[in-house]
């Protein structure tokens, strides 16, 4: 039951295509077949990027089935489940997913999946692989949920340390952060950075922490406070609408403070919502994953392969990179598990053990991710953390820095 998603399906997808696709026959051509449950949001806050995201990760599974899977005698089937980015929906769907698919792994989406399944997956012995940065509230040992990237606060702290280095001087960098209580993950982003600023006063002076709605009415007055506090950077890792409202607020005040975005609300998405990428000239995105710039990189070459040979229709963007990187480290771990245990009788528990057994190299993920060394101590690699920084230069996305070290951020 391989349910392939294309960007063109958009809202129709949520309405019924998945239900129809569920009736499609199994495409079991190899000796062994295992299932993956894909959690998606086609009608909630990430509906705008979901077709690209899920189309990208599906293309990786198709590529793996036709290459490594064929050699190993294994086919990975997958099926999308619509969660509306809602923890209650995920929790109610999970028993059905388990009985229908008996998956060896879940390919997750975001915070609600973590909130709904963090207690259940250890009992069911099924690991979940995420694409986003990790969350402070899920930073626990012996996790069954894994992120290839550190927390959002790690990523923003790394960016701010890099920006301070670019600026020069000994005084701490002044920054502000936008948060929202609409999602626990949004609060988490601010909490982690607040703690980092508290513990590193010589590095960072967090001059404003602003809470707002996910669709703010107006942020002009808040942006004036940010400007008057002398902020040298504004961190917005929440969503696109807050980036747009903040940018308009900064423009209204005549303030030119660079905004840092994350991958899910990055430069292309926010630029599109503002009417053009040129509106974000000099702003940044930073994350522990390849930047989808125009430059010719191994990641870009792999993307081109997926487009040319495996039917990927998504444009080259940060969301596509997120979907591909999620798919790549998932299949890399499953590949390791098969090499360790053989193709027969693979279980979720074996997949999780394989994750700790050996690192997932940057070569295995075609440069989309740095080399990942997971341990049972945390849901994300604690060592060798790096981020890449992208910016808009002359109306185009360009790589500003690669392999930026992530500073030591304590658990909060």
């Amino acid at each position, binding site marked *: 039951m391989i349910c392939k998603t294309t960007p063109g399906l958009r*809202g129709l997808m949520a309405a019924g295509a998945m239900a129809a696709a569920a009736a499609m026959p199994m495409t079991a051509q190899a000796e062994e077949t295992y299932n993956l449950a894909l959690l998606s949001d086609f009608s909630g806050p990430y509906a705008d990027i979901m077709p690209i995201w899920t189309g990208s990760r599906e293309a990786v599974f198709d590529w793996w089935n036709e290459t490594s899977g064929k050699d190993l005698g294994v086919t990975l089937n997958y099926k999308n489940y619509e969660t509306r980015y809602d923890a209650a929906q995920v929790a109610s769907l999970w028993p059905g997913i388990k009985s229908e698919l008996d998956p060896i792994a879940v390919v997750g989406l975001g915070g609600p999946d973590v909130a709904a399944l963090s207690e259940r997956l250890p009992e069911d012995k099924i690991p979940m692989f995420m694409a986003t940065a990790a969350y402070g509230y899920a930073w626990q040992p012996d996790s069954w949920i894994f992120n290839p990237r550190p927390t959002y606060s790690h990523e923003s702290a790394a960016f701010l340390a890099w920006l301070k280095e670019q600026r020069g001087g000994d005084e701490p960098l002044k920054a502000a952060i936008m948060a929202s209580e*609409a999602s626990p993950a949004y609060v988490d982003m601010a909490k982690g950075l607040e703690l980092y600023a508290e513990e590193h006063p010589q590095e960072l002076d967090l001059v404003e922490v*602003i809470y707002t709605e996910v669709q703010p009415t107006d942020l002009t007055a808040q942006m004036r406070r940010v400007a008057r506090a002398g902020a040298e950077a504004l961190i917005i890792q929440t969503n696109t609408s807050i980036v747009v409202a903040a940018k308009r607020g900064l423009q209204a005040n005549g303030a030119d403070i660079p905004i840092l975005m994350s991958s899910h609300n990055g430069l292309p998405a926010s630029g599109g919502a503002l009417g053009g990428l040129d509106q974000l000239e000099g702003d940044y995105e930073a994350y522990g994953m390849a930047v989808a710039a125009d430059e010719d990189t191994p990641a870009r070459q792999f993307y081109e392969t997926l487009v040319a040979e495996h039917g990927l229709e998504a444009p080259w963007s940060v969301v596509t990179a997120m979907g591909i990187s999620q798919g790549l480290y998932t299949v890399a771990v499953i590949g390791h598990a098969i090499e360790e245990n053989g193709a027969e009788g693979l279980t979720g528990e074996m997949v999780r053990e394989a994750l700790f057994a050996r690192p997932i190299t940057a070569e295995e993920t075609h440069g989309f991710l740095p080399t990942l060394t997971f341990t049972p101590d945390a849901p994300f690699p604690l060592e060798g953390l790096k981020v890449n920084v992208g910016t808009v230069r002359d109306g185009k996305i360009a790589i500003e820095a690669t392999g930026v070290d992530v500073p030591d951020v304590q658990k909060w």
Partner: protein
Amino acid sequence: MVYFINDIITGALIGLLYALVAMGFVVIYRASKVFNFAQGELVIIGGFIVWFTTMQLGLSLWLSIPLSLVLAGLVGYAIERIFLTKLIGESVFSMVMVTVGLLILLRGLVLLLFGPAVRPFPIIFPLKPLFLGDMLIPMNLLAGGIITIVAAVGLSWFFNRTRSGLRMTAVAEDHVVASSMGISVKGSIAFAWVLGAILSTIGAMIFLSGKSLTFLASDIGFAALPVALFAGLESIGGLILAGVIIGIAQSLTTNYLDPLIGGSLGSVVPYIIMLAILLVRPTGLFGWRTIERV
């Protein structure tokens, strides 16, 4: 101190925007005793109409705004004709449940027709704020505040001083009795929905001017709900005071308490105020007290 006063002014103007959206609730309620749960969805329908006429058809704002208001009125009329007209004479509960279904249907329709992408909304009001010394006032909110007050005065006059407005109030009291008195129940309710849709579209233009448009913008309907209930569902003039109180309380909480406690208490405060007033006055601040003689 300047910031504090500025936050109060901005809060009051945001509260007036909530009052404008809440006016849609009140107009429909006063004409039909139906609480329209899909009011937020009418805001995004209006927003998408403005976006479509401006960004897709490329019409100038002078043309697209009146055209959008007309189209929004037609959408309101169509909704009433298709979903509500057959329920006239039935229990109010049935009609309210239809509006709950409408909420889900309209959200789905927007997704189906326009997709989930975040779109740039046209700049209707100048982005540059008005500077008063050290204080700044966003132009969209200032214009919105003026429009809200003008609309409230006009609608209060209409409902309390004109024959058509009084007829609509009679319809809300009892459909059957109003019909027996020769009042067009269908016409009154349809007019209320047309008005509700137009007010929502004006609210969308103020709310979204120069920002981004997605189906999630319908959340403003929930933000306006406490204003409508706080004022009392029959009082249009009361919305102004209720909006200003709730807007200021929310602004001060967001700017001064939230950073201290690390949470968005600002989004909860309107509901706390609403519940507090409903405990003391179940009909809201300016809602009608009904005396029934048995």
